[in-house]
């Protein structure tokens, strides 16, 4: 289990990286945290001619507020930092919570935000979480920058809207409104293992006690994060109670098409999706406006 031979480049800037990519976009692979790519190299399931290491690229590891009030996370921000960074913890606690479910600390110290999103494993936490938060992904290529909403970014298993020759530079997320609650939950066979299924929710209960807004995304239940677009319509104005959450769960089950694998059946994933949906919405509602366990 040793990597095949490759050429190695360690550019100092994004533009330099794009320049190198331009030479052989199909035969080059970007190396971020390496926590997905290097196993594939060791197994020789990936055999790129050129490996472009992003770890020495400057300017990709910032956590910052944009002038229009979003939080921007550079592609090379380590997953570990999502748990510890005060800005992320204050503004995007859902991201901080989801990050704690990614593998283990010695993997999160290397694994990056961009790597997880670009790799787009159907069972990964960050893609679904970013989708639940309605984030957008900033991609740069030879023709400049473009922004892709999360819902369009994840095309399928291990497939995204990134074109050959492009790279993901950052994501931007608008923090949920003051008083919105959030929750993340998943089941996995062992602590830190890839999830069998999971759910991320953001939900706000209005002053009158009815749901003012709600977003939800599930992971592990299809080839890409599943975001029920009908949720707002079904939930807004309703009382945040169990029957509603169960109805939403039931509808989720009708719409997802999970797969069987050696760890769990499709049927299992369907049923757990309903449970995790209901739990995440309930917990988010409890957290909304400082209610419940906050």
């Amino acid at each position, binding site marked *: 289990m*040793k990597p095949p031979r490759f050429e190695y480049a360690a550019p100092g800037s994004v533009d330099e990286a794009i320049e190198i990519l331009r030479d052989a976009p199909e035969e080059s692979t970007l190396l971020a945290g390496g926590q997905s790519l290097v196993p594939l190299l060791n197994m020789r399931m990936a055999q790129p001619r050129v490996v472009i290491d992003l770890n020495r690229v400057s300017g990709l590891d910032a956590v910052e507020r944009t002038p229009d009030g979003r939080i921007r996370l550079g592609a090379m921000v380590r997953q570990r930092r999502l748990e510890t960074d005060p800005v992320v913890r204050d503004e995007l606690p859902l991201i901080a919570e989801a990050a704690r479910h990614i593998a283990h600390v010695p993997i999160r110290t290397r694994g990056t935000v961009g790597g997880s999103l670009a790799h787009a494993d159907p069972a990964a936490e960050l893609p679904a979480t970013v989708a639940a938060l309605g984030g957008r992904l900033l991609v740069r290529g030879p023709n400049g920058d473009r922004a892709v909403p999360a819902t369009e970014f994840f095309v399928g298993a291990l497939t995204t809207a990134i074109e050959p020759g492009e790279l993901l530079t950052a994501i931007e997320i608008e923090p949920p409104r003051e008083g919105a609650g959030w929750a993340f939950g998943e*089941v996995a066979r062992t*602590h830190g293992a*890839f999830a069998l299924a999971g759910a991320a929710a953001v939900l706000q209960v209005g002053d009158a006690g009815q749901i003012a807004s709600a977003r939800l995304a599930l992971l592990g239940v299809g080839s890409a994060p599943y975001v029920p677009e009908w949720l707002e319509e079904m939930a807004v104005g309703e009382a945040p109670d169990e029957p509603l959450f169960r109805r939403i769960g039931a509808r989720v089950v009708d719409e997802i098409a999970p797969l069987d694998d*050696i760890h769990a059946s499709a*049927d299992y994933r369907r*049923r757990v999706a309903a449970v995790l949906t209901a739990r995440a919405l309930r917990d988010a509602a409890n957290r909304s406006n400082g209610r419940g366990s906050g």
Partner: protein
Amino acid sequence: MPAWVGRRMPRREDAELLTGRGRFIGDLGRSGMVHAVFLRSPYPHARIVSIDASRALAMPGVRAVLTGADLPEDLGAQPNTHLFGERETPYFALARERARYAGEPVAVIVADSQYLAEDARDEVIVDWEPLPSVGDADRALADDAPLVYGDRDWPDNVAATFEQEMGDVDSAFDEADVVVTERYRIQRQFGCSLETRGVLAEWDENVDELTLWTSSQIVHIARDLLAAVLGLPEHRIRVLVPRIGGGFGAKFHFYPEETAVALAARATGRPVRWVEDRMESFLATVHAREQRVEISMAAREDGTITAVKGDLVGDMGAALHTVGYGPLWLTAVMITNVYEIPNARVRARAVVTNKTPLGSFRGWGQPQANFVVERTVDRLARELGMDRADLRRRNFIPPERLPRKSLHHTLDSGDYPRCLDRALELLDERGWRERQHELRDEGRHVGIGISFYTENSALGPSRMLNQGGVQQGGYDIARVRVEPGGEVTLYTGLCEMGQGVTNALSQVCADNLGVHPEKIKVVTGDTSQVPYTGYGTGASRGAAVGGAAVMRASRKVREKVMRIAGHMLEANPDDLEAEDGMIFVRGTPTAAVTMGDVGRAAYLRAIELPEGEDPGLEAIEAFDPPQFAWPYGANIAVVEVDVDTGEVSFLDYIYVHDCGTIVNPMIVEGQIMGAVAQGIGAALFESLPYDEEGQPLFGTFMEYVLPTAAELPRLVMEHQHTPSPNIPGGMKGVGEAGTIGSPAAVVAAIEDALAPYGVRINETPVTPSAILAMVGEREVTPA
């Protein structure tokens, strides 16, 4: 009076291992060493039409590519030493014409680095002709099944059928008040030591001698089998075993890679090292456990079990490996567990399939036997409306009737009811039976599972092994030498693989010789130095059989020490005592000589020896146990099941057992904790599934799930002590015990937790997915 035996002593090798100085096989180097990798069959069954290695051989740094066609004509097949009457399933260091399982070694590629060897492997082209294959024992038994050994004219896929009976089973069933019948499926699992296997071979061409370092539990047997396969005299091979990163039975086998790497070293004239990578380990290291068992129990209304019969099918994979179908045989003969069941009948069929060969894993066939018996006893209790513990108590062989013959073996000694009762007492002291009711009332699903095991340890009487067909002894030989300076060197053929046997042996030696354990150096793992050991390091024999041999050798040396010291002190040897390296007249510690004084006399100053005393101060003694030893114990698991997600978590785990005299409680507890973790792995996590054709559906740790610290319980443990009547020192052995009863207890606890749903769990591992499938459709209520 034992001073060291029984003490909780931290281990001597820790310092080395804690500072990164321990040397495992992958850490060894020789000057000029090159690296081997194996090309393996991607097919479960295929004919090798041709292999083209020309491109690989032309690559820089590539030294050799050997295939089945390059093997010496007269090379022997890899031996099976456990011959119980079965068809032959020959396989070689490298597949010769066909591969019978995915992962079978087909070529060995040798290059200057592992990186280069893997590069070259990618360039070896094999022309395969895939053949029909079978990946499941039930399918393999079907009339139209593809034949794994059709080329050897087998009419079916049954390598052997074993049958044994005692009493009158049919009448007992006819007369029974209650009969229960259950079918169980036990999955494939394997030892999965954290260190994979590895081999380093070096030929000395001048004298035609081979030195082989290997991560093996069977240092002498590996040497002998290698000698047989290569056609060399045994003394031309020296086998060495460095530090081993866990063995668990998987390293109890003699593997094709050991032969192939030796041949590669001869072919290249260089020392060659191979270290198994994790992905190949899942296919190349023996698997274990997989069985389907149908079992029926007959009982009277009062709960007396009158008969048991079992029909076992073992999925042996593509060949009978070093231990043949030994584990399946052991499952069959342990079908009565610790119960006084007068009538029993078993049939076991060893079935070949196109899968990795089955072999040893801690517990051998015992976890399977325990699972099917203990789960069926629970079933019977339910059927009879009896308490599970009461039913067990009623059927235990009572202490006064031990020793007692069961289907095949003679259980030796102990007090089963006392052991179970203590475990139940602990359960109550910890309040679980009450808590369970309370928690159930709160809507939580909490279950308690009980099992009782015995373990076949201290293997074993050599004659009995031979009579059964095992081509190995069961004895152990120890050599103890007092050096001129008074320090002690203890030579043992047992291998240290983390189980602490060298510490245990030095504690035994210390007591019997009268020295401090720190003065004892233990030499292991080198056929040129250590005495022969009959069976190798397995079957929980280290402390018991090895310990008894060390005890004898130490005492023999001590006698001589006393004679010499008596002469020096002008005292009667019978009046002397030895302690901590001092030999003195009982009651007069001031009149003393040291072990060093005696050592010098023995080697350097014959002038101080008594008349007629030979020089030298060492003894070599063998011990062959007259009988097996039978430790036993109770497992009680307390679990909670989340019925919405199928997740299982442990609330408590109680383990009360008796393994006779305990040499070092710290080591014994460590052995049990580790083995229970493997049993829980069997119950909940670990599995090696194949598709119908024998394609593996696993390949990495992403598929083969090992439990982590976050899943496993804290064990509450108590020891009881019934010394073995057959082993000097009274030790019974404990190495495998924890794996045996734990799967049954855990699964019983889950079943109990799910009592409201009336589920029966007859298959492992019990995954969350399996649990939800059993619980069935139900309203979703977020907990």
